[in-house]
């Protein structure tokens, strides 16, 4: 590919990777605290539809963003209640959340099907920086949510690895009994991180319905929530690596789209398979190379029961 074609391609890769990045960073936070939430797909869908509907009602995309965060957060609250307070099975609860969210979003969004977004996010050109050759058009002519997603990923990395709060969160995921012994409320940490995960998934969904697509249709996420879950493993539970991973997946998606429009004779169905096959490949490579689920929080998926200490 020539440079002139490469620049818009890389810019598109970032756009395609952004919804996954939001959701994956959120899931990193939840899993770091010990809660596996397989409901990302459902939370994203609810975020997408809430953001879309409220933006139509108010005509302002920022109110839509707030609604999407609230929608995702509320969904996550269900998961937190079942898995933390009631110590329920995290895998089943997550699956239920995805089914439930698919239903809720389809129900709420039925009359909005196919409508264009009232106030879509449009690229904002960063002065000066966008004039840098090559890098400028790739990085600095994006919509504002792209910058927010990167800032949030960096912020959560800093929080996790450079602050005492981060240590608290990680200890809840690694050794909740020890965390409890030094006076950390494992339940509170897990609730908080699960809800952060939901808010981020809601943002990722809203990015789809308000910036990327920008429209609403049933099942808008098309498996991106699940790719985000896989990306967490790829990123070894580190928000910084999630950035690279999200853009890699975005790149595959953008490539599939470009090959199609370039009229290259591969069936579009095979190209559509690529992100899913890549997820499997990456998962296998990461797991095989690191032997078992190295890097996973030790207490991931295990309910904490104080009585059993």
């Amino acid at each position, binding site marked *: 590919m020539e440079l002139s074609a490469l620049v818009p391609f890389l810019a598109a890769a970032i756009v395609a990777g952004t919804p996954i990045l939001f959701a994956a960073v959120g899931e990193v936070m939840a899993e770091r605290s010990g809660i596996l939430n*397989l409901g990302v797909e459902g939370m994203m869908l609810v975020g997408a539809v809430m953001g879309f509907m409220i933006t139509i009602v108010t005509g302002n995309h920022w109110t839509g963003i707030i609604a999407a965060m609230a929608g995702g957060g509320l969904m996550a609250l269900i998961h937190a209640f079942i898995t933390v307070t009631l110590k*329920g099975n995290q895998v089943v609860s997550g*699956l*239920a959340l995805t089914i439930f969210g698919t*239903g*809720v979003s389809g129900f709420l969004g039925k009359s909005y099907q196919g409508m264009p977004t009232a106030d879509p996010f449009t690229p904002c050109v960063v002065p000066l920086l966008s004039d840098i050759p090559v890098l400028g058009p790739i990085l600095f002519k994006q919509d504002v949510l792209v910058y927010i997603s990167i800032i949030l990923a960096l912020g959560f990395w800093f929080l996790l690895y450079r602050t005492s709060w981060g240590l608290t969160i990680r200890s809840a995921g690694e050794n909740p009994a020890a965390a409890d012994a030094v006076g950390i409320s494992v339940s509170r940490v897990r609730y908080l991180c699960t809800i952060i995960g939901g808010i981020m998934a809601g943002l990722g969904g809203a990015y789809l319905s308000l910036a990327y697509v920008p429209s609403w249709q049933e099942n808008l996420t098309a498996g991106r929530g*699940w790719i985000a879950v896989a990306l967490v493993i790829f990123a070894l539970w580190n928000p910084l690596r999630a950035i690279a991973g999200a853009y890699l997946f975005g790149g595959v998606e953008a490539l599939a789209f470009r090959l199609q429009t370039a009229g290259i004779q591969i069936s579009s169905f*095979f190209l559509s398979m690529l992100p899913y096959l890549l997820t499997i490949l990456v998962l296998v490579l990461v797991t095989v190379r690191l032997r078992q*689920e190295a890097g996973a929080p030790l207490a991931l998926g295990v309910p904490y029961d104080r009585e059993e200490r």
Partner: protein
Amino acid sequence: MYKVRMVRREHNSMWVEVIVPIMSIILAVAFGWLFLSWSGHDAAATYMRMLNGAIGSKYNLSETVVKAIPLMLAGLAVSLAFRMKLWNIGGEGQLYMGAFAASGIALACGDMSAWLLLPLMLLAGFAAGAIWGGIPGVLRAYWQVNETITTLMLNYVAIFWVSYLVFGPWKDPASMGFPLSARFSLNAYLPVLGTTRVHLGLIIAIIIAVLFYIILNYTRWGYEIRVSGESQEAARYAGINVTRNIILVMLISGGIAGVTGMIEVSGITHRLQQGISPGYGYTGIIVAWLARLNPFAIILVAFLFGALLVGGFGIQTMGISYSIVLILQGAVLFFLLAGEFFRKYRIVLTKGD
């Protein structure tokens, strides 16, 4: 001041085992009621329409059975994997691969006698599903690759593969542009009951349920699966070949999901087409879980969910989204999980300060 404490139950009482699933369904229905009312619909009328659509007439009842059959098979398929705590959520993709392979046989050998053709299609469906479930099984058994993600990702691959076929090489020239394969020859049709659409798949599902019951309760292999499900460490210590069992269970689990695809194309659609499953693979997970993985309970619960699906189609004419069915399914699971808590714990109030 009373202190609230949660105390783990020493042993489970039998009635909780039955009452929790029933209560979770009742509460989910109540939740759906609130949701419908809140969104400005007439909940009572909606539920009546659903009930009527599902069991209101002989024909409606037979349609409920038609939808229950794939749910029985899909539920049985994943239940075996769940016994070993293998999270096979790839039933949907395994179903599509089974449908693909069975259709391939039906389209290629249409003039073969039904006595030969149908078993061949069944075998092909099983084999294709088994491969689709076996890949994540091998990855999990040898390299601990998370099977939740791999089985799920393979769902998308399988669905795109079937789409490719019906839009491309297998497209029927006579379909006037619709993405459908050619219609199978009559030899590839599963026998049906009278004038209904209820087909032989019902018997296949019941046979598999009986087989599962016997295997799990009366054979050494069933014992191995149950022990491995409790603790893989303990199973290895007891000399059980866990690696082999993971692969075997995933092969069979995927294979039965593949059979589900076979009976759908052979019994219902009579051709390969897009959307042969409205998520049977996923609903099967709920069915299996609600039935506490008991094979006979799966048959019953599948009937219930078949009614929910058929009833859900009915309310669309009232302008209510089919999505309400998914909301109810999700809610049933949530209440079931919440109920699980009361199965494991007692709430104790103690006087203290």
